[in-house]
């Protein structure tokens, strides 16, 4: 009896540990799930391939939005607020950021695409959101963005909105730097 008790207890403790691990496994699992389905406007942060021509003439509108996260004092706006683009061709534009504070700061932009269905078709060939953006006090910078839209995007999508939220990560990045030194 005591032996079977011990076996069962070990099994149950094992499943407890397993479920604790599963809690953490949910983090990448949700990520994978979002990426595969394009839910949550979750955008790939790996550079897409350069496309230069395609056989469609389909044109859609893309809008650019800039948002400052609540504690972020920089001035941040898109260079152009909207563009007409052909599917399958690569375009470039930029966002303008200026650090109006008297301190050196580091920022990170996080993209989001709406409608979320379009997220899987909007490819960023190059993007300022791939890197953290350091600016000295008073410095102004044009941050480049090159993108294209895959030609097989569903026909009912006529307008895409690409939004960037700018976060202040000065403290976090200095911590990371300190720990790597």
């Amino acid at each position: 009896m005591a032996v079977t008790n011990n076996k069962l207890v070990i099994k149950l403790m094992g499943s407890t540990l397993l479920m604790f691990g599963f809690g953490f496994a949910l983090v990448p699992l949700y990520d994978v799930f979002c990426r595969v389905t394009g839910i949550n406007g979750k955008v790939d942060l790996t550079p897409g391939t350069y496309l230069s021509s395609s056989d469609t003439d389909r044109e859609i509108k893309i809008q650019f939005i800039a948002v400052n996260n609540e504690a972020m004092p920089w001035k941040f706006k898109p260079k152009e607020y909207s563009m007409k683009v052909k599917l399958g061709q690569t375009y470039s534009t930029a966002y303008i950021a200026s650090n109006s504070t008297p301190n050196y700061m580091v920022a990170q932009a996080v993209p989001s695409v709406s409608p979320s269905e379009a997220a899987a078709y909007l490819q960023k060939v190059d993007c300022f959101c791939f890197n953290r953006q350091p600016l000295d006090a008073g410095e102004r910078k044009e941050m480049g963005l090159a993108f294209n839209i895959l030609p097989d995007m569903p026909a009912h999508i006529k307008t895409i909105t690409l939004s960037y939220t700018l976060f202040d990560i000065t403290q976090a990045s200095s911590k990371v730097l300190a720990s790597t030194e």
Partner: protein
Amino acid sequence: MTTGTEQVVEAEIETAEAGKNESFDGAIADTDKNESTTEHHHGPAKGISRWFFTTNHKDIGSMYLWFSLTMFMVGGCMALMIRTELFQPGLQFIQPDFFNQMTTMHGLIMVFGAVMPAFVGLANWMIPMMVGAPDMALPRLNNWSFWILPFAFSIMLMTLFMEGGGPNFGWTFYAPLSTTFAPPSVTYFIFAVHMMGISSIMGAINVIVTILNMRAPGMNMMKLPLFVWTWLITAFLLILVMPVLAGVVTMMLMDIHFGTSFFSAAGGGDPVLFQHIFWFFGHPEVYIMILPAFGIVSEIIPTFARKKLFGYSSMVYATSSIAFLSFIVWAHHMFTVGLPLAGELFFMFATMLIAVPTGVKVFNWVATMFRGSMTFETPMLFALAFVVLFSIGGFSGLMLAIAPADFQYHDTYFVVAHFHYVLVPGSIFSIMAATYYWLPKWTGNYYNEKMGKIHFWLSFIGINITFFPMHFVGLAGMPRRVPDYALQFADFNAVATVGAFLFGFSQLLFIYNVVCCIRKKNQASKQVWEGAHGLEWTLPSPAPYHSFTKPPKVD
């Protein structure tokens, strides 16, 4: 292993085929015989150390129940503070930040401190007696899982006196409110949640091992009393989801102190991820708080209807399907976060599906009562109120499950009304019913029936006055978790506050009744209730300190 259990285990092996005395209804118990052999070898230890070092399931069950009652009172005082502030619009008594701490602590204490420990206490007291086991399978672990709790809750309550105040981010502690914007005491909160989780997991392991390994000969799975069945399923839910809760608070801890970004968008994390992981725990958690209640009601209604429970096996399957479904509906708490249409539809239909097994259960309870010879003692009154009021809570749940409608109900008092209807007249009433039902078996004395009935009616009227108007203010748009509100909600809020005070103070009657029952001699019979069936009623009242040291035989 303790020597106590080894003795017990040996005795069990020796006498596995020994019991022969027949008692009523097919259950055979030789309790009278083993009483004389066990009574003399050791009773409870003397003094306070009895409670610190006890490994006896009845002692530990009692401690759990007293602990739960204490927390119920503490959480209740917080609820009354909330209701006092909401009696009239405007800020009268407490500051908004303290108000937020009260709503948060009220929720956490009632969920983890009152309802869950009460069910574990009932499990400790009743499961060994119901399956014919001498004690829980792991008595030392049992002692430990109880004694962690007072420390966990001391830590939790301590935060109220710390700089920056206690947790003020709601009992669901959504990030980033509970990470980036939390008061410094959040670390203590995280530690307390870890401790509660460890306690529940150990309790659950104990329950599973007891039920699977310690049943009396002849007590096969489909003969288990329903309270035991529902607790077995609850224990599995606990083992599956409490570690996920531990995981999510660990991620919070890492985000706050170790520079990770699980829930911070700036570092590549996602605040919505918090809600997904939290509700993956949170939804099964609400069934953890209601399945044992289903079991209790399934014990009480047949007793007072003097009929066998209608549809025993369908009850078992319904409970299991509810437990399974609880894992695939979590996102119905998050309809408004921006789920894709397919997600909204899936979670909406999966949620509605839960109404089917729940409906089976309600149908079975009603069918049990149908043409029964019913009497209305206090436990039965509470059980009947459970069936009616829990169904009302279930219906408002169905309304909330409709994704397009939920956009209006989300985060309003309608939600507050819904979950209080399933938790107060649901879980709490079932715990009250269980207490009245088994109190004569625990103490050996009958409680005062008249006082019990008065307590029931005051509670019944009190909670309906408190929570029913919340449906209306919710539908009219009053948000939850606010210390102040627009003038048009004033009347219903005043009514709710009056009801809350009525309900709160009538619980003092309950405490008085329990204390009197322990102290005043009013010898209860072995059978206690005329229509009661099951192994626990073959034991004398009060149940001896060691029961079933020789296992009874069940046909």
